[in-house]
C-alpha cells in the first residue's frame, strides 16, 4: 500500500459517491446516464489504477491490463446503446427553459 494507490482509491470512492447522487437527483434518463456512465467509468478506472499500484509487476498486472482495456472498450459502448435506445423510443430530453416556463405559467394561474 503506497501513496499512489491511496490517492487513486480515494478518487474512486469520491466519484462513486457522486455518481450515485447524480443518478438519484437528476431529472430525466439522459442526464442520469451522464452521471452514471461517466462518473462511474472514472471511478472504476481509478480503482483499477489503484489496484495496479498495489499488485506491482507480476502475473496479476497482465490480467488487470486486459480487464482495464476491455472495460475501456465496452463501457462507452453500453452507455451509447442505452442512450440510443432512449432516443429511438422517443424519450423527450429535459430542458432548463421548459421547466422555468412551466413554473412561470403555473404562477400566472
Amino acid at each position, binding site marked *: *500500500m503506497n501513496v499512489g494507490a*491511496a490517492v487513486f*482509491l480515494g478518487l*474512486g*470512492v469520491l466519484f*462513486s*459517491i457522486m*455518481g*450515485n447522487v447524480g*443518478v*438519484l437527483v437528476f431529472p430525466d*434518463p439522459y442526464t*442520469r*446516464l451522464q452521471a*452514471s*456512465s461517466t462518473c*462511474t*467509468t472514472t*471511478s*472504476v478506472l481509478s*480503482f*483499477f489504477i489503484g*489496484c495496479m499500484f*498495489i*499488485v506491482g509487476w507480476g*502475473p*496479476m498486472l497482465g*490480467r*488487470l491490463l*486486459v*480487464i482495464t482495456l*476491455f*472495460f475501456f472498450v*465496452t*463501457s462507452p*459502448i*453500453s*452507455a451509447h*446503446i*442505452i442512450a*440510443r*435506445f*432512449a432516443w*429511438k*423510443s422517443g*424519450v423527450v430530453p429535459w430542458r432548463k427553459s421548459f421547466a422555468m416556463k412551466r413554473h412561470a405559467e403555473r404562477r400566472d394561474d
Partner: protein
Amino acid sequence: MLAWVIRFMVLSIVVSMVRVVIGPTVADRMIGLNLVAAQTLALLVLISVSMERSIYLDVALVYDIFGFVGILVMTRYFSGKKGEL
C-alpha cells in the same frame, strides 16, 4: 484500507439498486443495471486483489463480458415492443 473500500462498494451497489426499483421508464432501469454491473466488476477486482488470488480476476473478466451482452440483449428485446412500455 482495502477492506473498507470493499465495504463501501457493497453499500454503493445497494444504493444504486434504488434506481432500478423506482425508475419510471425502462431506460432508467437499464441505467441502474449498468451502474450495478460496473460497480460489481470493480468489487470483484478489489476482492481478488485483497485476497491475492489471480484466478479470481478471470471471474471479473467474464462478468464484464456478460454484463455487456446482457445490456445488448435487453435493448434488442425492448426496442421491438415500442407501444407496450
